[in-house]
């Protein structure tokens, strides 16, 4: 048996490395049922694995467990510390990622708001364009002339009056257009500058987010470093091997058919 101090140390390390998850959280991640492996059971497995490996290697020296104990302990401790460190890194990266995501979302909302403001200013400008009286000026003159002819005014007086109205309308149109144009130009320029700044901030935040994701979290490694394949120790080995071969052949046929089409 592995010595008692190793056992105590393993218990403490396992408790430190374990992560608590609520039933609700598990459900949210799609787990309806989980298999539970008790801590003591895990310890027994580790102890048995050590003893089994020693036995397999023909290491029958009765003093060997005592000598191997510290080595196993160091290795196991290192592995558990790694798990703990990775978990802390994962949590910190997750927090950082969430903050960045919140910032990116906020910036996107601001950009959307600024785009809408700019669009509103453009609409006002278009409305001002519509206010220009030039198109209807001739019609107005005709109506005015017809109306004034019903009075005792002479032709000369009528024309002078029409000119006066024309002059007044020109002045007013210029004044309104000037006012609107200055305001919309100012608003438009401010909004454009704001949009550019927001876009820059968004690009920076998105780049940070991408860097955080790539640098801190390169993906979760598979438990396999090499190709596996069916183990000869598996139950129904021959039958399974034949079935796997059938699946492979069917896929090769499918691939050929796909290429042919």
């Amino acid at each position, binding site marked *: 048996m592995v010595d008692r101090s190793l056992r105590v140390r393993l218990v403490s390390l396992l408790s430190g490395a374990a992560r608590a998850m609520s039933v609700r959280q598990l459900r949210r991640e799609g787990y309806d049922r989980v298999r539970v492996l008790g801590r003591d059971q895990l310890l027994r497995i580790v102890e048995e694995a050590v003893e089994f490996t020693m036995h397999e290697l023909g290491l029958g020296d009765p003093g060997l467990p005592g000598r191997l104990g510290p080595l196993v302990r160091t290795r196991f401790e290192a592995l558990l510390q790694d798990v703990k460190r990775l978990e802390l890194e994962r949590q910190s990266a997750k927090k950082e990622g969430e903050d960045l995501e919140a910032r990116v979302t906020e910036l996107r909302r601001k950009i959307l708001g600024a785009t809408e403001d700019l669009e509103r200013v453009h609409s006002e400008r278009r409305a001002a364009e519509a206010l220009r009286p030039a198109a209807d000026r001739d019609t107005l003159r005709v109506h005015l002339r017809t109306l004034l002819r019903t009075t005792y005014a002479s032709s000369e007086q009528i024309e002078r009056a029409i000119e006066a109205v024309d002059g007044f309308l020109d002045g007013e149109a210029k004044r309104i257009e000037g006012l609107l144009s200055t305001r919309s130009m100012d608003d438009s320029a401010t909004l454009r500058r704001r949009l550019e700044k927001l876009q820059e901030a968004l690009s920076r935040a998105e780049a940070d987010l991408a860097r955080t994701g790539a640098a801190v979290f390169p993906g979760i490694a598979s438990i*396999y470093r090499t190709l596996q394949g*069916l183990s000869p120790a598996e139950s129904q080995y021959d039958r399974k091997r034949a079935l796997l071969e059938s699946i492979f052949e069917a896929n090769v046929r499918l691939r050929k058919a796909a290429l042919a089409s």
Partner: protein
Amino acid sequence: MNATKEADKDAPKNPKDKTHGVLYVGIDLGTSRTAVAASNGVRASVPSFVGYPKDHVSRKLLGREVLIGEDVIENRLALRWYRPLEKGVIKGSDGAVLTPEDVEANMRAARDLLTHTISLVRPRPDEVVYGVVGAPAQASVKNQKALLDAGRELLDAVLICSEPFAVAYGLDWLDDVLVIDIGAGTVDLCRMHGTMPEENDQITLTTAGDWVDEQLEGLLRDRCPGAQFSRAMVKTLKEKYSTVLDAAAPIEVDLPVRGKPTRFDVTEAVRSACRGIVPPIVESLGELVASFDPEFQERLRNRVLLAGGGSQIGGLERAIEEAMRERLGGGRVLRIEEPVYGGANGALKIAHDMPPANWKKLD
């Protein structure tokens, strides 16, 4: 999606540079829900919905070009959205009447769904990724080719296999077993007898989850006068309360009537719609049992596995057993432990067990 794109960007250009390890992935691409399990211990499932922003404003607001799963359901009013799989295969790949644009859009949506599904298991860019994708039992060659095309763009090598077979293989039940895989689009029944199932070992029914939704919608229209509801609401209701049990607790739900939430008892409607899938299943079970070697028919009747999201209907295994007693003189039905992940787990086991030489030939 971003994670995958980032991973793609950093991925070694030459597959031979992927020296870190081998990631096996098992995927059950379902009409309603797609599940994935991988050899890095990650597994996940996502509703099979794909959406794209309708216009510039929604694109700015949502901040993404593609949305998948729950995000699509939440933002569907701002999206052009697709459910790219129909009856378990990519919509339009089976020659259904769709415009070429619709076929292309569904293919793109299926690819995006698969990309997202693979990104969920967070593969390392320097690992070789080999995947097995489950297809419905009777998917045509054209259907399978469509799945293969989508998979080959994303995985270093991909294999297609029958979904019910994957479920049985995952559980090590290879002999004299009948698998009923109840999905949203199809119910696949598959007879296993130690060899690869052939065409006459498999029956596909369309009286599946979507069909139950349709039936329930009709019953609610009859029995809840004035109530306003959508198909999505009916689906949610079914997923929460589905049962075939006589002794089920009363199911009371609030549905709007002219904008006012009104309480309705829908127990009988839910039970009746869910029970509708039992007769066709038992009829098909009968056909598969009757055409089997008489010496092993009893064993087959007593080894029926119930899998798929639809198998979560309360009391379904007992209702099938009861109907089997009347139609076939008895039988035993066992619901698998993890209905949602049964297909993905089995596909992962097939990927792991496949001889390395075979993977290399496909790579």
